[in-house]
């Protein structure tokens, strides 16, 4: 379909300058995206390593491989690394950084130096966290619940908190950059109604980052103050209320779920259109649902606190509000499915991840209904049911979409394709491994197995063995793409500007793109995703 490409463009963003300094001081959004890609991938495998240790420990009921204190550090570090250093930056900071200016027809983000600063803040926060890993870890759980974190824990809470605090500002600045860029850097003719859906979802994500993250920052800072000076902001023995911390924490951390999953929605909206060659079914609804989720996500945090001392009436209100979120999420799933109708569906690697995403996110979303039902939550709260639920959203949803996006934009980033057969094989491995890992956890959860247990009674054994077996398949599924993608950098065939026949401004520049993306500022005259126009062009 696309003409055979025999050589890369002469000058592109990768060879525009050489040397370490040209990377570390770059303000090119594409190079910063690559910096993020490298570091976030490292964090992903670090977090995965912790996860593997957790799963290995849980293969047997007794705590034999790791001592409980080590186990507690492992699951905490797994959570912190995966959430703050992988899931939150993954799609926005890598894919978003790379394609947003191109999607908008701009030369760069509105604030390129701020973008680089974001990466340095991310690195600084990450180094604090790595430092904590080296000197002995932290064992509070990623939630840092007081008074355990502020008074009782014997681990490195303050250093970790500082790492999270700094990384939070990296996240805020990235979001701020994206919001301003979307408002002021759009090419002529690119109206809001013509924005790619990925832009809509990243815009929504950025709103959450700007408005939610500061509250986490202050909550973590207060925990640090309480721990360092032994004062009682939350400590009940000094008059504080530990539940207040939970309010502040979840005010950010529930919307943070949408920071992690909204970009995935955007990716899936792009992929489902490209690989079925069809404009999305109900563009306005899908776009609006992103904003709706971002705004509405701030009204529901109390559903993490049904079993705490939160009042029954507050719980009722939060439960009621929580159910509204089901509507925009449903809109998305239904519209993606309907987009396939009468399309031209291809089964290339990114599309397989998209199929996986739709299925797993549906399960993840529907099990959310279980948790928002207050009476049922009394039973499943803080059990493996919750663990399975959010892994279906975060891993089955976000990681699937992230891998799909990496495979989709890899040719744009590097100018080269990758072996599609291997890609499809890995996608299948990830899907199978994922379900084998996390489906048994739903069962274990309803059976009553609490989360964060280093040892557990015998009746949960079989389910945990299945889960650990699945985790090893999943691990292989994640390593395979790493290998063939690295291999493809030198050996794979060249991709050309638009290997998928996709629409969108980012596919109209060479692969890899030049430093300023476009020869001259493009002018948009079409509605978005007009696949039907292609026929004329091809003929």
């Amino acid at each position, binding site marked *: *379909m696309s003409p055979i490409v025999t050589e890369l463009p002469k000058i592109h963003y990768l060879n525009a300058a050489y040397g370490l300094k040209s990377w570390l001081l770059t303000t090119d959004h594409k190079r910063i995206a690559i910096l993020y890609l490298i570091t976030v991938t490292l964090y992903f495998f670090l977090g995965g390593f912790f996860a593997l240790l957790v799963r290995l420990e849980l293969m047997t009921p007794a705590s034999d491989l790791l001592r*409980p204190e080590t186990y*507690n550090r492992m699951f905490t570090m797994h959570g912190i690394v995966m959430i703050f250093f992988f899931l939150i930056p993954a799609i926005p900071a890598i894919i978003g950084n790379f394609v947003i200016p191109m999607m908008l027809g701009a030369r760069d983000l509105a604030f390129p130096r701020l973008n680089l600063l974001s990466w340095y803040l991310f690195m600084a926060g990450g180094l604090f966290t790595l430092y904590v890993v080296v000197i002995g870890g932290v*064992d509070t*759980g990623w939630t840092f*619940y007081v*008074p355990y974190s502020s008074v*009782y824990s014997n681990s490195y809470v303050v250093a970790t908190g500082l790492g999270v605090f700094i990384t939070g500002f990296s996240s805020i600045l990235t979001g701020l950059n994206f919001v301003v860029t979307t408002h002021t850097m759009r090419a002529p003719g690119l109206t809001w109604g013509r924005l790619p859906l990925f832009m809509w979802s990243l815009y929504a994500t950025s709103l959450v980052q700007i408005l939610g993250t500061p509250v986490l920052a202050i909550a973590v800072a207060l925990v640090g103050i309480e721990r360092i000076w032994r004062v009682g902001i939350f400590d009940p*023995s000094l008059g504080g*209320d*530990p539940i207040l911390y939970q309010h502040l924490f979840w005010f950010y951390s529930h919307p943070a779920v949408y920071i992690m999953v909204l970009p995935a929605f955007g990716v899936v909206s792009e992929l489902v259109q490209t690989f079925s*060659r069809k*404009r999305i*079914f*109900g*563009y306005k*609804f899908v776009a609006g649902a992103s904003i709706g989720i971002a705004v509405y996500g701030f009204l529901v945090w109390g559903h993490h606190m049904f*079993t*705490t001392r939160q009042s*029954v009436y507050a719980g*009722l209100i939060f*439960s*009621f509000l929580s159910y509204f979120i*089901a*509507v925009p999420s449903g*809109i998305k*799933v*239904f*519209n993606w*499915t309907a987009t396939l*109708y*009468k399309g*031209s569906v*291809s*089964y290339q690697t990114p599309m397989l991840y998209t199929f996986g995403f*739709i*299925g797993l996110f*549906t*399960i993840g979303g*529907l099990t959310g*209904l*279980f948790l*928002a039902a*207050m*009476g*049922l*939550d*009394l*039973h499943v*709260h*803080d059990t493996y049911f919750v663990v399975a639920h959010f892994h279906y959203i975060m891993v089955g949803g976000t990681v699937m979409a992230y891998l799909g996006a990496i495979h989709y934009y890899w040719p744009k980033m590097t100018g080269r394709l990758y072996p599609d057969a291997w890609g499809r094989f890995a996608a299948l491995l990830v899907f199978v491994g994922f379900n084998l890992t996390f489906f048994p956890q739903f069962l274990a959860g309803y*059976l*009553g197995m*609490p989360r*964060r*247990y*280093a*040892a557990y009674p015998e009746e949960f054994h079989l389910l945990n063995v299945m889960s650990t077996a699945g985790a090893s398949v999943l691990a292989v599924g994640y390593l395979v793409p790493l290998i063939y993608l690295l291999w493809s950098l030198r050996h794979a065939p060249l991709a050309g500007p638009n290997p998928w026949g996709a629409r969108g401004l980012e596919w109209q520049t060479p692969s890899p793109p030049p430093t300023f993306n476009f020869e001259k500022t493009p002018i948009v005259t079409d509605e978005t995703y007009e696949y*039907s126009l292609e026929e004329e062009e*091809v003929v």
Partner: protein
Amino acid sequence: MRFLPPTASTGAESVDSLYYFLVALTFLFTGGIFLSVTYFAIRYRRRDPRECPRPVHGSALLESAWIAIPFVIVMFIFGWGAKVYYDLSVPPTDALQLYVIGKQWMWKAQHPDGQREINELHVPLGRPVRIVMTSQDVIHSFYIPAFRVKRDVVPGSYTTMWFTPTKVGRFHLFCAEYCGTEHSGMIGWVTVMEPTDFERWLSGAGAEGSMAATGEKLFQRLGCAGCHRSDAPGRCPPMTGVFGSSVVLANGQTVIADEQYVRESILNPKAKIVAGYQPVMPSYQGQVSEDQLLSLIAYIRSLAAPGTTEAGTAVQPQAAPPAPQPRRSRVSEGPTTITQPERRQRK
């Protein structure tokens, strides 16, 4: 392989019904999405690399359908879940009263008659049981899967849960809120016994005297009795008949004198002054342990006048549906010399 924990309380059945409904709903929707995606993906697979399908621009009717229908369904789930939650949160008035203290890393339980247990909890079959819980250190969560109940145990305040066991047997007791190194070791057993066996167990469990009696001794020893005299109300409000009643405060607000209020009044007496009294009581913060606080509360509870408690006191033995417990009446023994006019006067 089992997929459900034992169903051993009245609440467990209502939770399970909701669960089955949601499982069915999940299968229905996931199946629907899965079948549609599979069908579309096969039916409309790309046959020619150059093919370009005609656009379908969406349908307002379909969009409103898949906004409205899920909305109605989730509102139904909300209502159902809220009902179950409310029922599981509000104990019946005739419940047997137990006390639990969580600490790193054990559960300490105490019966009104003074029997103490660690990581064990014995309860009678068919009687509602209400548990008042607190923590000595960090947040824990008291979780009995077989009863489908879980409540966080929060330091500095009381939370409550209740259940009516419907099956004799031994069931898991877990700590569900991460609480430190031995979190997974903070587990135990709940034993449900036939009422007669339970009576036998109680009498054999070696109590040092009922909690109310212990509380009364403490009340004397800490010097509370010198001021809070029921015979000569003066500087301090008398304690008889207070528990469970509404108390008018100096700032005009009204509070119900429950466990939380009594606790606060001991630890932080100047926070809520009863109308008509001076803030003269010193704080007992740091001088009474959580155990002693519960004993004091049990004592003050025992001073409640008949028919005035809001929850859980053993004031109407006849009203308890199965197997009235003669032993329970002991809770309301003690110097219950209150008269109705006296109480009204204090309001």
